[in-house]
């Protein structure tokens, strides 16, 4: 138990990301409303983004923008001074993908609503079954 | 043994396949059947042209494509295959003539479809005959199964369709469920599927494995009709008679028997079977089928059904002959393919001719029919003699060799089986002939006026009946081929 606590503290970001992700996953599985599922999906995606951004964090480093100006190569840049930019780049892409998915999902919801006049999954299924 | 590479086997297979587009596209029935004849004759010519080379003991080989490591789609013409190919391509011509008479006589529908699948079935049959390995054999075997399905279900009514389903279920089900895995196991064990005289197994495999494999392969070729995989055959008799004739007396069932023989001789090898004493199992299986089928045949009233059960019994002769593992027995089994084919096809032709002329299907309705259709019934008599195995018909030779085989193998029970089954054969054929000719005028159901079936129906059955008798006098070609195959 004694050595467990430092582990827990040292990685709390990871624990939180897992929590968030599970919240999203649970919402996607268990929620009945289609838009709620989309909210869950977004939370799920953000959790992964959180995970990636957590990878990029480095103690004692500043944001990944060079303090030197634009253009000239004045001084040597020390890698240890800057955060890891790679996860940030990846996550920009992931956010964009998230927005794109969101748009498409909402468009689908609109189509579904115009057909069934409800967004509750069980009601839609009941309507389908009745036919 | 010499081998020649030649494209002829492939051509022989493809001829009837290539003619199908012509069949489909021709609008005029005469043109269509003309194409069928052309194909039939070309096929016979190609097959016959290979006979001299085979008789000299060479083999003709052609590889199409190597599809799997060590296994190719490959044709090999040897004596045994040649025997079978010769029989089927000869009988195709006859059957074509007969079909024309039958189909036109009854104004059947969908004749184009019929002739197409007929042609495809023939291709597959020749393919089976010439295949050089188990995979090629399996390929054409399946092709045959699927090509005959539309023929079986030709009438399209409820009964035909359910029989078709039954047919397909038995044949394809057995081949996929038993042959395919067995083949794969063989491949996995040995790395090859090529037929050879010595068999492909090294002999180090366990006895149990071999037994299982053997049973899977023998039973899996359900077209051979070995019990308990026989019940498709009587069901398939709903098909038009020429189909029953060619396919259920010649092509389909013989393909089954041929495949079993190929497996026994080419995959396992006689020596290995003898060493592991596996022949006996097959023997008893076949013997059981022979007796049971004959007994059932006795009780059948439908002519075609009786013939069907007779076929089941006769097929098992073939298997039995090879399973005796004695040289004479093997020769007997192989020649029986040819002899039985000629005899049985005559019988079926007769049944069809009766149906065309009178519309009767059951034996009990045929009292006195000999007076009306003497030619047909004489041919029927000759055919039944051949099937029973009495001179002066070709069937005598094969049965003779079979009996000798049992003696050679010291299998006395089998001798008893053979003889008793011959008696049974006689018991279910002769009453028909007897009632057809010798009955009191009161009993006769037909007028005493000769009114045969159409000429297109009668000519073929006369030819085959004549062939049956001719085989008694000139059996040398088939005997030679069978000996070469040993």
């Amino acid at each position, binding site marked *: 138990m004694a050595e467990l606590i430092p582990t827990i503290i040292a990685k709390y970001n990871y624990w939180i990301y897992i929590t968030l992700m599970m919240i999203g996953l649970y919402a996607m599985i268990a929620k009945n409303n289609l838009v709620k599922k989309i909210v869950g999906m977004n939370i799920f995606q953000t959790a992964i983004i959180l995970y990636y951004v957590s990878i990029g964090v480095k103690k004692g480093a*500043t*944001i990944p*923008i060079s*303090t030197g100006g634009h253009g000239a190569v004045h001084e040597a840049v020390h890698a240890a001074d800057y955060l890891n930019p790679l996860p940030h780049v990846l996550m920009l892409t992931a956010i964009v993908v998230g927005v794109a998915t969101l748009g498409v999902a909402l468009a689908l919801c609109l189509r579904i609503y115009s057909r069934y006049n409800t967004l509750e999954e069980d009601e839609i299924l009941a309507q389908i079954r009745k036919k | 043994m010499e081998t020649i590479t030649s494209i002829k086997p492939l051509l022989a297979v493809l001829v009837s396949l290539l003619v199908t587009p012509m069949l489909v596209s021709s609008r005029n029935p005469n043109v269509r059947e003309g194409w069928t004849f052309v194909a039939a004759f070309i096929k016979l010519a190609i097959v016959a042209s290979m006979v001299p080379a085979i008789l000299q003991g060479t083999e003709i080989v052609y590889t199409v494509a190597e599809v799997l490591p060590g296994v190719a789609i490959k044709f090999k013409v040897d004596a045994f295959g040649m025997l079978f190919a010769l029989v089927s391509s000869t009988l195709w011509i006859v059957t074509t003539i007969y079909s024309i008479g039958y189909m036109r006589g009854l104004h059947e529908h969908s004749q184009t479809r019929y002739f197409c699948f007929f042609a495809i079935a023939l291709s597959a049959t020749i393919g089976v005959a010439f295949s050089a390995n188990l995979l090629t054999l399996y390929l054409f075997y399946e092709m045959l199964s699927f090509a005959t399905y539309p023929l079986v279900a030709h009438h399209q009514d409820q009964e035909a369709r359910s029989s078709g389903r039954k047919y397909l279920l038995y044949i394809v089900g057995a081949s996929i469920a038993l042959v395919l895995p067995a083949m794969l196991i063989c491949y996995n064990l040995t790395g090859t599927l090529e037929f050879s005289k010595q068999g492909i197994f090294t002999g180090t495999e366990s006895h149990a494995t071999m037994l299982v494999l053997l049973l899977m392969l023998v039973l899996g070729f359900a077209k051979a009709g070995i019990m308990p995989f026989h019940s498709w055959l009587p069901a398939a008799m709903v098909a038009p008679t020429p189909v029953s004739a060619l396919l259920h007396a010649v092509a389909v069932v013989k393909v089954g028997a041929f495949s079993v023989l190929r497996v026994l001789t080419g995959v396992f090898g006689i020596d290995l079977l003898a060493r592991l004493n596996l022949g006996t199992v097959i023997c008893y299986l076949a013997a059981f089928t022979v007796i049971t089928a004959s007994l059932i045949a006795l009780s059948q009233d439908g002519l075609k059904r009786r013939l069907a059960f007779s076929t089941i019994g006769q097929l098992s002769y073939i298997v039995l002959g090879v399973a005796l593992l004695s040289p004479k027995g093997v020769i007997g089994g192989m020649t029986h393919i040819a002899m039985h084919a000629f005899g049985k096809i005559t019988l079926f032709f007769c049944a069809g001719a009766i149906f065309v002329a009178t519309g009767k299907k059951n034996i009990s309705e045929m009292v006195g029919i000999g007076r009306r259709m003497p030619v047909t019934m004489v041919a029927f008599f000759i055919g039944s003699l051949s099937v029973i195995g009495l001179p002066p018909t070709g069937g005598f030779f094969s049965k003779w060799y079979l009996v000798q085989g049992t003696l050679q193998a010291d299998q006395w029970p089998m001798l008893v089986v053979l003889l008793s089954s011959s008696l049974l054969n006689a018991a279910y054929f002769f009453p028909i002939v007897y009632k057809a000719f010798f009955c009191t005028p009161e009993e006769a159901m037909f007028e005493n006026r000769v009114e045969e079936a159409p000429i297109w129906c009668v000519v073929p059955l006369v030819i085959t009946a004549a062939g049956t008798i001719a085989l008694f006098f000139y059996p040398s070609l088939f005997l030679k081929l069978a000996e070469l195959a040993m």
Partner: protein
Amino acid sequence: MDNIFLYSSLYLAFLMVLSLYRAIVGPSVLDRMIGVNAIGSKTTVMLILIGLLYQRVDMFVDICLAYAMLNFIAVLAASRYFHKRKGLSDEI
């Protein structure tokens, strides 16, 4: 000075909790909107504070500016909802 900023940010986070309470509990959607709006204004300050903590405020100020510009779009959209769909609860 850094400590002051750090603790101010922490304090802001605490204030967010208070606003969040309204956003979560708020009996009507409009109360939630108030709560969220309040969180937004605190976020603006906090972003600058973080920039100062990183000593790169020139970088964070852009984010903050964008944030201040766009923050109220969602609120406007939600209020437009009530313009066109009258009634607090939806027609069922």
